[in-house]
Structures are given as structure tokens and as C-alpha cells.
């Protein structure tokens, strides 16, 4: 009988410690959100490379008692007292290493700003800046499309003027929300992990969801802001770019950007290092590693830990809904900014530039460029805008990294 009693007690203790007995309604809701994101990633193919690990990380962190991730170790909390204490003391690395879970340790890669620059290294290895070098004016379109970042920052700031505490954002939070308009996931994570880690989960989910929705969000804006005549413009061929130019480009860009906005150096520097690997043609092994294995490994870790920051306390707030709304506004204004400058360039060039390539300035490489191509081809099936749109598209990557550097410089 005694054995049975011990067995029963052990069974009761096991059940009492199980997630079934300890789950809160909020955690249950978060698990449902993670399932929804998994569905979007697997079935609807919404940026699956990152959304899937993000969704799974979100699920892991909301399993009661799993202890995989401790947001309080990194000051990730909506409670201003916790955030203030963290701001004063910083990360206690000893505690993280001794008592942290798997995701706590992996999160160090985000907190120490290792993962986003490594992703940029891989992107640099995969990016051909030739269209941009051939048509340097594309950089202006990449700059105009960053308008969404700053207008959304403004919008988030204005919410705090309403006096409603639940939707009031600090400058740091507003800057992190604004960067969604850069349509560049690693940049958004890079900036948010520094300025507003408590919003990292919401911002990453919003950023990647909208990036996946670029083909849905952009075309109506493109059609609304351009005329049929403008959309039909056939652009001439790009000049050939010499290897020497392609090699000088990453070095020159790094020097210029790093000297003016040093805070943008981790992103721009690694992007350009990857590109130099690619264009130099002498380190094929490094190019293959950086653009494949390394990038894939970092993507897995980055996505999972970013998802893990979306705990019920941090995610299920009115602020998340506001972030989703502001993120959409950021994308729309960024697209409009690029298009409007494109229209101006169309006028100034005497109708030689198709304004549709302006919308590609919102980064989201290469999705936004593909959208420009698709919308242009609908007006004239033989029109081929893709390579022209790749110029503003990669310029947008540089532009959003610079914008992040500026915001980091001001608020960091």
C-alpha cells in the first residue's frame, strides 16, 4: 500500500507541476498566436525562414515552467521599474550563464548585437550592387522610401500625446516601431534589441509579416499614385559595371557611412564585408559559408530567440495592436515616399524613369523589386523593370541601416 501511496503522490506532484495545471489564459492565447504564425509560415509561405522559428520560439517561451527564457534577465518587461533597474545595472552575464535556459544563452547573440550583423554579412554575399552602381540616382529612391520610418516614429510619438498610458510610447519605443518601415528584419531587430527589447517580439512579428505581405500592400498604392502612362515607361538598359567598381564600392560605402554615422557600422560594415567577399572573387569558400551555412545557423537562432521574447506579458498588450497598425502605416508611407520621388524623377528626366521602381526602395529584398516588375509588366508585358528596381531595393538596405544608425545615435 505504501508503494501505491508514493506512486500516487509522485503522480499528483507531476501533474501539479505540469503545464496543464499551471498555464494561464494569457499563455494559452499566446500558444494560439504561435500556432497561427506557424500556419502563416507553413501554409501561406509568409517569410517562412524567419516566421517559423519565431513562431516556435514564441510557443516555447509560453509553455509554463519550461524555463527556457527569462525575459527579466534582459530587462524585457512592460514594468518600468524592471526596465529602470536593468538600465542601471545592465545584463548580469554570470547569472545568465549559470542560471539561464537555452534561449537565454542564445539571446546573448541578439543582446550583444552579433546575429543581425552576421545576417547582413550573408546578405552582402548574396547581393549584387551592380544595378545601384550603374544608376547611382537609385540611392535617392532608397532614401525617400525611408520616409515611412520617420513618419511612423512621429505617429508613435503622437500617440503618447493622447494621454492614454496603454498606448503611450517613449522615444526609444517609437524609434523601434518606426524602423518597421525600413522593411528590413535584421535592422529592426538590431535597433529594437538596443532601444526597446520589451517590444522585440511584437516588432519582429509585425516587420516579417508585413515583409511577406509586400505583394499585397504595395500594388494598390503603386496604382493609386501613378498614371498608366508613368507605369508604362520602358527604361533603357543599364551600363555594364566593371569589377573594379564593384570592389571599390563596398570599401567606399563602409568608410563614408561609418565616418558619418558610426552606430550604423555593425550593419553596413558587415553588409559591405560580405559584398567585398563576393566581388573580390578570391574567397569563394567564405562566400559560400557566409551566405549559406552561417546565415542559416544564425537565422535559426535569431528567429527562435526573437520569438521567445514574445511572452504573454509583453505581447498581449494594447501596444502590440498599435505596433501592428503603425507598422502597416510605416510600410505604406515608405512605399508612397519612394513612388513620389520616382514621379519627381520621371518629370525631371523627361519621362525616362519609371516611378514604379521607387516603391522598391523600402528594402524587403528582393520582394519589393519583384513587385515593381510585376506591376510594370501588367501595363506592358515586355517591360523589364526588375534590374532597375534592384538599384533602389539594395539602396533601401543601406538607407534603413543608416536610419537605424541615426536613431541609435540619438537614442542609444
Amino acid at each position, binding site marked *: 500500500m505504501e508503494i501505491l501511496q508514493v506512486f500516487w503522490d509522485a503522480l499528483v506532484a507531476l501533474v501539479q507541476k505540469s503545464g496543464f495545471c499551471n498555464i494561464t489564459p494569457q499563455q494559452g492565447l499566446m500558444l494560439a498566436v504561435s500556432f497561427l504564425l506557424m500556419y502563416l509560415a507553413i501554409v501561406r509561405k509568409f517569410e517562412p525562414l524567419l516566421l517559423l522559428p519565431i513562431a516556435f520560439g514564441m510557443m516555447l517561451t509560453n509553455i509554463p515552467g519550461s524555463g527556457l527564457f527569462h525575459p527579466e534577465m534582459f530587462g524585457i518587461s512592460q514594468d518600468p521599474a524592471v526596465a529602470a533597474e536593468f538600465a542601471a545595472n545592465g545584463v548580469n552575464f554570470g547569472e545568465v550563464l549559470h542560471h539561464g535556459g537555452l534561449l537565454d544563452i542564445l539571446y546573448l547573440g541578439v543582446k550583444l548585437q552579433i546575429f543581425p550583423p552576421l545576417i547582413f554579412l550573408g546578405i552582402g554575399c548574396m547581393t549584387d550592387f551592380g544595378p545601384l552602381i550603374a544608376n547611382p540616382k537609385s540611392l535617392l529612391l532608397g532614401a525617400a522610401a525611408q520616409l515611412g520610418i520617420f513618419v511612423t516614429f512621429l505617429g508613435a510619438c503622437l500617440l503618447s500625446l493622447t494621454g492614454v498610458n496603454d498606448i503611450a510610447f517613449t522615444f526609444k519605443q517609437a524609434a523601434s516601431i518606426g524602423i518597421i518601415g525600413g522593411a528590413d528584419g535584421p535592422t529592426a531587430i538590431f535597433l529594437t534589441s538596443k532601444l526597446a527589447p520589451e517590444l522585440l517580439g511584437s516588432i519582429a512579428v509585425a516587420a516579417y509579416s508585413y515583409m511577406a505581405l509586400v505583394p499585397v500592400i504595395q500594388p494598390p498604392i503603386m496604382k493609386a499614385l501613378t498614371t498608366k502612362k508613368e507605369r508604362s515607361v520602358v527604361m533603357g538598359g543599364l551600363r555594364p559595371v566593371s569589377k573594379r567598381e564593384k570592389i571599390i564600392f563596398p570599401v567606399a560605402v563602409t568608410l563614408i557611412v561609418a565616418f*558619418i554615422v558610426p552606430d550604423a557600422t555593425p550593419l553596413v560594415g558587415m553588409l559591405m564585408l560580405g559584398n567585398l567577399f563576393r566581388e573580390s572573387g578570391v574567397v569563394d569558400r567564405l562566400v559560400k559559408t557566409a551566405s549559406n551555412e552561417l546565415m542559416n545557423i544564425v537565422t535559426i537562432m535569431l528567429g527562435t530567440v526573437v520569438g521567445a521574447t514574445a511572452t504573454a506579458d509583453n505581447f498581449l498588450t494594447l501596444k502590440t495592436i498599435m505596433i501592428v497598425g503603425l507598422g502597416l502605416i510605416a510600410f505604406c508611407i515608405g512605399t508612397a515616399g519612394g513612388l513620389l520621388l520616382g514621379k519627381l524623377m520621371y518629370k525631371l528626366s523627361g519621362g525616362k524613369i519609371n516611378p514604379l521602381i521607387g516603391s522598391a526602395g523600402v528594402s524587403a529584398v528582393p520582394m519589393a523589386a519583384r513587385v515593381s516588375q510585376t506591376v510594370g509588366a501588367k501595363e506592358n508585358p515586355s517591360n523589364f523593370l526588375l534590374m532597375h528596381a534592384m538599384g533602389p531595393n539594395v539602396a533601401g538596405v543601406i538607407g534603413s541601416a543608416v536610419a537605424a544608425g541615426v536613431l541609435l545615435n540619438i537614442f542609444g
Partner: protein
Amino acid sequence: MENLLRTMAIITEKSAADNISGMWATVITGIVVVFLILAILIFLLYIIGFFCNLGTKKKTDKPAEVKQETAPAPAPAEIIEEDENDDEIIAVISAAIAAYGADDGKNYVIKKIKRSEKQPRSSWGNAGVNENTRPF
């Protein structure tokens, strides 16, 4: 520039409710700096392009009018125009037209080969560009 940004001295933990001028200053500074840096890069790219292409001579092929007879045909039934003196291309086009004519027993004379004004790129050209840009 870094010092300029730092001297804005925005109390970062505050919100716009505490510092409206800081909000506007951030927006204006951000937009100006992004445009400024990218404008400098444009200037730089033109300089790099200028020096790198200094020694390169532009090849200008004079458009030549080419007459070629694929077969001793009595009736010139098709005229295609040409702007490039490329024997291989002419040979390919001639062969294609000859093959086309062989079906209905007619012979054609090619008087001119010129790129079509209406369609800037042929279907074959589009297919080629698609193939080369597939990674994007």
C-alpha cells in the same frame, strides 16, 4: 555629425508628451542625415565610375543595312529590319525564316533586319533576361 546628433540632448526615456521639440528634431535630423549620406554616396559612385571607366572606349557599332537572300525567291514577302551587323544572328534569322517558308513552299528575301520599335525586347530576349535574373 556624431557630435551634432549627440548635442540634440533628447532625454530618451521620455516621450513626446515631455519633449515635443525633440520629436520634430529627430524626424528632421533623421530624414536630412539619410538623404545627405545617400547623396554623398551618389557623388562618390559617379566619381568611382568616372575614374574606373576612364580608359574604356565606348564601342559604337554603326547600324548597317544588310541585304541577304536566303533563296532565289521571286517575291519578297517579309521584311525584318536590322541594326546590328552580326553574321551569326543573320544566319540564325535566315535559317528560321527558311524553315518557316519550307512548310508552305514559299521563299523569302530578307532586305532589312531592325529591332522592333513596339516591343523593346523579343520573347527570346525576355526569356534570356528572366534566366539571368532568376536569383533576384
